């Protein structure tokens, strides 16, 4: 049965897995009707730039039921965005870069000369 999603329930953190006949049926059903993980990853990355349609958002939510990894991926993309935008608040930890004393002196000198002209 190629293309069919049939994940092992062993240590599977997803909400739905092949634990009983009912779940198995659900997993197959959802696996067929939602994008594959490789596609989901691409869609999620794009969603960071432009809004997803309602249909797609529903599909993703369904997909997450059978795939905890994609759900994690989405969470992590958002965390990344938060990290980047928080860099200015943690600038001292992120970067200890400073202008060297010589660089500063050079700048002051250049500004002094500039004023004299």
């Amino acid at each position, binding site marked *: 049965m190629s293309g069919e999603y049939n994940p092992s329930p062993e240590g599977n953190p997803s909400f739905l897995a092949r634990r009983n006949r009912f779940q198995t049926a659900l997993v197959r059903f959802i696996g067929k009707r939602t994008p594959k993980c490789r596609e989901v990853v691409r869609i999620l990355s*794009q969603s960071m730039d432009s809004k997803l349609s309602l249909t797609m958002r529903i599909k993703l939510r369904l997909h997450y039921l059978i795939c905890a990894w994609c759900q*994690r991926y989405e969470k992590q993309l958002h965390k990344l965005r938060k990290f980047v*935008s*928080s860099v200015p608040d943690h600038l001292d*930890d992120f970067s200890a870069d400073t202008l060297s004393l010589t660089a500063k002196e050079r700048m002051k000198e250049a500004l002094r000369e500039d004023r004299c002209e």
Partner: protein
Amino acid sequence: MQSPKIEGPRPAAIAMVDPEHWVEEHGDGLYRYALLRVRRPEIAEDLVQETFFAAVRTSGSFRGKSSERSWLCGILKNKICDHFRKLGRETSFTDLEFLDDELSHKFGPQGFWNHERGPLEWRPEAEVVMHRAEFWETFRNCLSKLPVRVADVFILREMEDEYFAKQSLGYVTPSTDGFTRVSRNELV
């Protein structure tokens, strides 16, 4: 606009233009702001110097409504934008294509995650880990590993905004690839 949190003092009068004082007071802050975005020390230094020169010339337009630092940052931001424009990088997709391959081995032949290679839970929670100095060092390392073009788009887009990135780079590919790449390197 994102400017460093440390604000400079408000000048008492617009006429009080003291560029040498600016270097001491704002030099490092501006330098870090620039370095974050252009990622080359020499260039960051040049841009900061150009900012001070420009500030001296246009000091008449500084109304004192924002802080000195914000005002200088605004000038610097434009310099940064000009810098990227001048570079006039051509749109090359080789950097971006390579990222598709980065993740491809993590999926099975049917396109589902290989369970052993899928994303791990990130512990501890973001709110906790953000207060650790080591985290920011790691994060910085991850960013430095991004291919240059990807880093440009990612950083400019996320630290400024899409408009600024478009103005500076002339094109905006989704910062998706930046996200993908950085997340791959992120440690648990």
